[in-house]
């Protein structure tokens, strides 16, 4: 087994050397960065088991380093320990909200520091690939939940399974689509500390298991008044889910609120779903402009869904209006309404036998696009096995 690696980002060279010596004695491989940008680059490229970061650094504060790490999928799941001379509770709170996993203020005993590093290294990111997919539309009724549910059922066949997260605040439709009556949902986190310090241990109790093996983090059954989950909690949730599942599929609310933006920041792939009608294409343009220039932009794939048999706009017109190609298209499937009524998504029906519905085939194409090499071909073929 290779040695676990710790990256230390700290502008005090003497402190760097002290930490290097101490960590090496404990058998860690140690990587050092005395400048923030250098540390950020190393963290994203080397993906160490734990990142130790100082807060007070001249070129870029530790807060900003953490925020940038969490905004990049390569850094979204890295365990981050803040080691700083800033000892105020408000600094601790700000660091955890930015995405740190643990916080120690100097002076601290070496024993305590090593225990914390060991703890974080032990729960370091899974070595297996983990992928977060966010499905989003700023216009409701274009079939986002249908695609999310079917995609999640297909990706559930990956080695470590999948989890479907319903971030909608108006009595999410995911449970309805899967005929689930979840007793747990993320609404119980509202009003709690952000993020809850014991979220990791709480997470299993928040999930509901579908008969397919798919896990669901359900939305509250009733409409949420006011704000939904905040950024820090969404980030922490998705990091926790990355550790457990090969795929996390997020059915995002149709607005760019804190929760959606946090999910987008964690996403490896963003599927921007729309129907070929004027209002949906317009809202897709709005979303693209909102994300322009952000790291999220390059992860966006346009998915044109056909929730109705006749749609007014052609592919050519849509692409012209959006100024970019539509990568994936999902045909109208007349069986979808029945599937929804039965609580048996079409992908699940395809697995159970019978002909493969058009929507299930399209979802398979989406899965291949999303998963790429990360999902074994055989896992996807099982959707065809009943043909």
């Amino acid at each position, binding site marked *: 087994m290779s040695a676990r690696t710790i990256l230390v980002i700290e502008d005090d060279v003497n402190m760097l050397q002290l930490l290097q010596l101490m960590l090496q004695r404990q058998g860690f491989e140690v990587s050092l960065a005395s400048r923030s940008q250098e540390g950020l680059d190393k963290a994203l490229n080397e993906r160490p088991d734990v990142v130790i970061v100082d807060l*007070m650094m001249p070129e870029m504060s530790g*807060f900003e380093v953490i925020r940038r790490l969490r905004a990049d999928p390569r850094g979204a799941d890295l365990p981050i320990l803040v080691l700083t001379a*800033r000892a105020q509770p408000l600094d601790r709170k*700000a660091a955890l909200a930015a995405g740190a996993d643990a916080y120690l203020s*100097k*002076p601290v005993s*070496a*024993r305590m*520091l090593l225990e914390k590093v060991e703890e974080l290294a032990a729960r370091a990111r899974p070595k297996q690939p983990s992928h977060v997919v966010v499905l989003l539309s700023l216009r409701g009724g274009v079939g986002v939940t249908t695609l999310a549910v079917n995609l999640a059922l297909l990706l559930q066949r990956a080695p470590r399974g999948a989890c479907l997260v319903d971030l909608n605040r108006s009595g999410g439709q995911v449970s309805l689509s899967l005929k689930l009556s979840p007793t747990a949902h993320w609404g119980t986190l509202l009003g709690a500390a952000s993020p809850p310090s014991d979220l990791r241990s709480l997470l299993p109790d928040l999930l509901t298991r579908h008969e397919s093996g798919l896990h669901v983090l359900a939305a509250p059954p009733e409409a949420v008044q006011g704000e939904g989950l905040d950024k820090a909690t969404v980030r922490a949730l998705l990091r926790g889910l990355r550790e457990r599942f090969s795929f996390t599929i997020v059915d995002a609310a149709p607005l760019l609120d804190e929760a959606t933006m946090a999910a987008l920041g964690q996403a490896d792939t963003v599927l921007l779903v729309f129907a070929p009608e004027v209002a949906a294409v317009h809202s897709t343009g709005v979303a693209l402009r909102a994300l322009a220039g952000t790291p999220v932009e390059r992860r966006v794939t346009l998915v044109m869904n056909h929730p109705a048999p006749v749609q007014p706009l052609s592919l050519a017109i849509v692409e012209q209006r959006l100024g970019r190609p539509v990568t994936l298209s999902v045909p109208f499937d007349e069986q979808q309404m029945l599937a929804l009524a039965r609580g048996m998504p079409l992908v699940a029906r395809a697995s159970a036998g019978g002909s493969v519905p058009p929507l299930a085939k399209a979802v398979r194409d989406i899965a291949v696009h999303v998963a790429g090499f990360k999902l074994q071909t055989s896992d996807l073929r099982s959707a065809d096995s009943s043909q």
Partner: protein
Amino acid sequence: MTDITPKDQEIAQPRGLLTADFLLESDRISGQVNVRARPLIDQLDDTTSSFLDLEDVYLSPITRPSELNQSFPAATLRKTAIHAAVLTRFEDGLSRHQAYGSYLGHIPHDVLLITSRYQVRGRVVLPPKTQLQTVIAAGTTRFLLVSEATATLTEHPEISFAGGAILVNMEQVTAFCETDETHSS
């Protein structure tokens, strides 16, 4: 000989440098004070100098105290502008003439000190029979050591700073209240 294992080391600031938060009218200034020659409170009380030198300085607006907006390799603070200096450890607030434990037999008083921007709650320890008023009136020291203390921004009570010791600038204090019965130690 005591066997010091690596795990028993303390990860701290470089020897002789003390990190403190200085609370000013509109800013939180975090920086390191060179305390090799003299403890911080002795430097603050030194009437021959109106200024305090800091190294590795970080500036935050007091209403957004977790933001690190600007940093400087060095800075000089006007002592009279400091409302309070927040220290993590009580012993870092002691003067050269005091030692940890030298307060044995003294009487602790729970106090509230009010400046134009902050309310500092904590404990001061005084020799027996010392009247609190004399602490203000005597004027022998500029800064008062308040232990187990919290400084709260009056207009934003959600913003507060806690420390093993807070050194309060008595020139900034407009009210000095005893908040509890005197404890016997």
